[in-house]
């Protein structure tokens, strides 16, 4: 195990673990146990291989075929992939994802950063309670979240009551049934779900930034904004990367919220790739197309994760 050295040092600081003698022994010990280790890991690896890896490979294979789930499949090459360009509904679902990313990702991260900047880094009594509140949306199942907002957005719902009460009665509408507003309305549900998480992530991140950096910035006469840009933002780089990766992939994969509230409608105005995948796979079987959507979604998620990690980890 090449990385073992670090942990050894951390675990037992009194003994010099780097002596050659010890290294040899650790290696032989390791050589003796690695087959036992494989035996221990065999069950989880087998289940993982059967449920995840094998279907993953099959997905790629399926995506080159035209198959209705019952009769003989026929090879169609890349036709299922060209749908991303030629199929207007599939193409528009990609545009919807971009809108959702703005609401699921950019808006919550901006809000989280602003609130983290407004809070002082000192410990605040009662923070535990606030943390509990901000994480609440994370533990609610998506169906319940969808119901909560269905009620708020309904024609007779609380959003419209509030609008009428403040004299904006002209704006009231059944939000989720509106061709223009359904998608942003869904997006705001995502904002509600993710922003507390981003905020807690950033607040805990700022408390890890060394005080000296802030003192140095103050000595240089930096104001609050300069301090934020020069010290807080770079210090939160890792956390911002994590938040971006998680929220963008959540936006890209949106299914539950849409399925429970609008099923992609009205028309196709809230259609997402995941909903199209579900319909093509199980409702109106065009299995190859569904597999192709799944493969593309996976590749995009993977690329996003890799690019963001690369960018935010660089120094």
């Amino acid at each position, binding site marked *: 195990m090449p990385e073992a050295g670090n942990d050894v040092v951390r675990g037992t600081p009194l003994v010099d673990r780097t002596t050659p003698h010890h290294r040899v022994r650790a290696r032989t010990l390791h050589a003796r146990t690695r087959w036992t280790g494989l035996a*221990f890991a065999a069950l989880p690896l087998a289940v993982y291989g059967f449920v995840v890896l094998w279907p993953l490979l099959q997905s790629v294979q399926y995506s080159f075929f035209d198959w209705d789930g019952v009769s003989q499949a026929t090879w169609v090459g890349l036709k299922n992939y060209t749908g991303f360009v030629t199929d207007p509904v599939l193409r528009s679902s990609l545009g919807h994802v971009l809108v959702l990313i703005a609401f699921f990702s950019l808006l919550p991260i901006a809000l989280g950063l602003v609130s983290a900047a407004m809070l002082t880094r000192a410990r605040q009594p009662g923070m535990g309670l606030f943390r509990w509140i901000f994480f609440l949306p994370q533990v609610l199942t998506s169906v319940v979240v969808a119901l*909560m907002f269905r009620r708020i957005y309904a024609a007779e719902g609380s959003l419209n009551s509030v609008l009428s009460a403040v004299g904006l009665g002209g704006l009231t509408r059944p939000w989720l049934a509106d061709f223009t507003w359904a998608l942003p309305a869904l997006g705001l549900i995502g904002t509600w779900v993710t922003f*507390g998480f981003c905020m807690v992530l950033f607040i805990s991140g700022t408390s890890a930034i060394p005080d000296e950096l802030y003192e140095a910035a103050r000595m240089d006469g930096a104001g609050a904004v300069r301090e934020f840009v020069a010290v807080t933002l770079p210090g939160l780089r890792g956390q911002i990367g994590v938040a971006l990766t998680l929220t963008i992939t959540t936006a890209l994969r949106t299914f539950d919220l849409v399925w429970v509230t609008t099923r992609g409608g009205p028309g196709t105005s809230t259609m997402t790739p995941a909903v199209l995948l579900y319909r093509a796979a199980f409702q109106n079987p065009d299995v190859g197309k569904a597999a192709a959507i799944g493969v593309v979604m996976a590749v995009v998620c993977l690329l996003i994760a890799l690019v963001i990690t690369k960018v935010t980890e660089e120094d």
Partner: protein
Amino acid sequence: MRAPRAEQAANYVVLVVMSVVVLWPAVTFVLAALSSDRAGRPAGVDWDNFATAWQQAGFSRAMTVSLVIAATASLGQVLLAVLGGYGFGVLGVAGQKVLFPVVLLGLMISLEAIIVPLYYQFRSAGLTNSVPGIILIHLGTSVPFGIFWMRAAFRALPRSLFEAAEIDGAGPLRLLLRVAAPLVSPAVWTLLLLAFMWTWNDYFLSLVFLHGDNVTATVALGVFQGRYVTQINLMAAGGLIVAAPVLVLYVLFQRRFISGMLAGALRE
């Protein structure tokens, strides 16, 4: 270090405003669930909503199915995670230079990438619409995070501990059960809670794989709300019933949940 009073007050203003934004939809939902008004406007408290929703949504059956799946799957997930984490973290695994990255890859693979062949493969094996079938899927998809999580926990233990026990002649299994397991029990408990939450809250897999008598509480709730669109108070009561088990755990074990989700997200 504590902030001066004025700063503290300003902090509270920010925190309270943000909390209200988060809590407002939840609080109005609870009020709607209690309301005797069909549209869910606050009006008289009606506890019968919960009983009515329970009956009409068929929650006796669905909640039992969910409980069986979530309890079995989360225990199984922890078992697999401990086995894998112990292998990769303590003993080393033959071929780990290839195997470990393959496991980590799973952290980034979305369900959408596997769901289609998984369904058709399970269908031909007779594992669709089957509780053991969906438990198996929950187990498989949880392996990457589980191994990643328990490996980190095992590696945080001092290596000298294992060496000392080895010298005493303890085999790998005894080492795990007697020495390592008690020391990593905090990580095990956190993983168990997170696994329970994730399986209980699952909607997509249940929607695809289970039908009829086997639907979980989340899917039953989805069906119920589609049928009772006009009875908001019942819909909200049903929602609270389905959310309740995880919410109770969240109240009881808030620190574990929050630190677990943060650490899991940061992959630390």
